């Protein structure tokens, strides 16, 4: 049944079904459920509370009327390679063995969705719930041949794994990229996920990553979003943490016309520690919307969020940080900080903490500050002979460094700092 709400969804379904991979990679029941959800709920518009500032229904209707799914091949990705990392490449949602490094690291296992047996297939797609969000449903129904990356019990992978997601198409295209990353008990991994777009196509990227962190495991990750001015994306990260585990993510967004990040962390085991850091830069008429969720289900967990935004021209930034502390989650420590700099009179930031606390012995705090660049600091630098542009860059760079320093890889920190300075 097509309701008025779901016409955008139906339009997308029709257009991409034709060219989507004929084989579904996930269990049939899951696929059916996903399609049903999509047809009933449709794409969220600004009447949906969680998408108040991010009217994706309108955006898709306006910008992606003529999805032709005309993807282009990629010959090489050398400009994005890092020197000291294991490189994995995903092109238009599908894992590319040809462009990726051979997997010869002990303890690290990778399979594409098409290589999974029935039991593995049932394991993935268990964290993100298709009923929760239309983009989860859309991705579940139409994901390309993504990958399942597993770090074996007790294995500490000695170099970072750098996954480069490159999208490239002619005209308008929608990509559904998906992965499932699992760290078994005691495993350790440094993960870098970089999203880029090549060429001048107008691409909507619906990205979904499920991350399962077992007991005592440690996952340090960075999501680096540096697509193009013609990129639109919804990026969902659904993370499940077992007891005594550690999960840290730093999301740096330097480019993209519309970037919506849904980062959800479920602290399902005691003594879990989770840090979410974000740095976003928006200019022109761009929109960067960071929605996070820290779900404290059990006692003695700690979570921390630091999101910093620099908004310029007529662009908009959004930070919505939900913290749920369930009834039994006593001795929870949950902190959240949102700091923003507005560089123009027409720049907008919407920042909202959303704390729902049902336990009674917890420490939770949230804070936000928004302002212009400190005039006195600018004058001090000018009065020492430093020109206005240099002074502004120095102050913005130092603002950004607090988050950039959270990234473990020095090579990546330098690359991001350099790209950041070119953008401001």
């Amino acid at each position, binding site marked *: 049944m097509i309701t008025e709400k779901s016409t955008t969804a139906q339009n997308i379904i029709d257009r991409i079904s034709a060219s989507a991979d004929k084989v579904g990679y996930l269990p049939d029941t899951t696929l059916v459920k996903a399609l049903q959800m999509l047809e009933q709920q449709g794409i969220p518009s600004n009447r949906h509370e969680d998408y108040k500032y991010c009217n994706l229904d309108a955006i898709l209707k306006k910008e992606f009327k003529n999805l032709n799914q005309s993807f282009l091949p990629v010959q090489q990705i050398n400009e994005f390679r890092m020197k000291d990392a294991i490189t994995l490449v995903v092109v238009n949602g599908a894992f590319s063995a040809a462009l990726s490094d051979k997997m010869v690291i002990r303890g690290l296992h990778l399979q594409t969705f098409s290589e999974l047996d029935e039991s593995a297939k049932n394991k993935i797609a268990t964290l993100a719930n298709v009923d929760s969000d239309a983009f989860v449903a859309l991705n579940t129904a139409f994901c390309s041949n993504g990958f399942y990356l597993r770090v074996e019990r007790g294995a500490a992978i000695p170099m970072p794994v750098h996954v480069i997601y490159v999208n490239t198409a002619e005209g308008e295209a929608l990509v559904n990229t998906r992965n499932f990353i699992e760290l078994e008990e005691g495993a350790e991994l440094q993960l870098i996920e970089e999203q880029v777009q090549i060429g001048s196509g107008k691409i909507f990227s619906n990205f979904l990553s499920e991350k399962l962190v077992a007991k005592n495991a440690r996952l340090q990750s960075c999501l680096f979003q540096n697509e193009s001015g013609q990129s639109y994306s919804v990026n969902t990260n659904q993370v499940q943490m077992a007891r005594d585990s550690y999960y840290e993510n730093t999301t740096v967004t330097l480019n993209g016309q519309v970037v919506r990040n849904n980062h959800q962390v479920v602290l399902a085991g005691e003594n879990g520690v989770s840090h979410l850091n974000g740095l976003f830069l928006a200019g022109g008429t761009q929109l960067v919307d960071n929605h996070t969720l820290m779900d404290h289900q059990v006692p003695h967990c700690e979570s921390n969020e630091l999101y910093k935004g620099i908004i310029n021209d007529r662009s908009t930034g959004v930070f919505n940080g939900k913290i749920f502390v369930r009834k039994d989650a006593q001795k929870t420590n949950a902190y959240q900080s949102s700091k923003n700099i507005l560089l123009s009179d027409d720049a907008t930031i919407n920042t909202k903490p959303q704390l729902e606390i049902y336990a009674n012995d917890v420490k939770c705090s949230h804070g936000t500050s928004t302002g212009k660049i400190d005039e*006195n*600091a600018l*004058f*001090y*630098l*000018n*009065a*020492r*002979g*430093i*020109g*206005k542009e*240099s*002074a502004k860059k*120095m*102050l913005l*760079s*130092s*603002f950004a*460094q*607090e988050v950039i320093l959270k990234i473990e890889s020095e090579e990546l920190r330098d690359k991001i700092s350099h790209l950041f300075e070119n953008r401001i």
Partner: protein
Amino acid sequence: MITIKNLHASVDGKEILKGINLTVKAGEIHAIMGPNGSGKSTLSSVLAGKEDYDVTEGEVLFNGKNLLDMPAEDRAREGLFLAFQYPIEIPGVSNINFLKTAVNEIRAYKGQEPMPAKDFLSLAKEKQKLVELDGKLANRSVNEGFSGGEKKRNEIFQMAMLDPKLAILDETDSGLDIDALKIVANGVNTLKNKDNAFIVITHYQRLLDYIVPDFVHILYNGKIVKSGTKELALELEAKGYDEIKKQFEKESVEG
């Protein structure tokens, strides 16, 4: 070096400087003293180029060039230095990086090549010793976590690194104990030569025992009402500002 003619300036519509006249030549040290509210900080801010202030009348020539037409950064590049009364903290911007950028932007303005890193570091080490600034502090963010005395010494350190033609010290002595005062004064005296000049703005005479001025001017109610030599400072110390206020209030009432 600098000629200030009939300078009037206001902030938020209120006139603070009501006709300042002052000439400072190379090799000279001028002290400007005055009670609170006389316009001391306004004068230094206007000369440094702070945009909050409106210059309503007058002109300032700095080495023959129109100072008031230049933005703050150009005034610094032309050789003007202001040691702030309240130096601010800039977290995240390292002291060394900040100074290196300043040094090199000034050099670029003068058509010079940037200073090689090695030379910069050895120059920094040398000047740090001059003001007894701990090497560790230099690696921190600008003024972050510095005590009052360390902030003031940091100002003199920067002055030593940038080698200005005219340095304006805005109540550099405020908040300093005798030992810090001596270090600051020693720094200034070491840097002083026949080609540069200093304007020392101070509330108290004490600093002038250590930085001996060639000329002393008394600023009151936005004007320089009296000028003299260092004896004038001692006289002021003995009689206090009330004496000055009485004398010049009476005159303005009569005038």
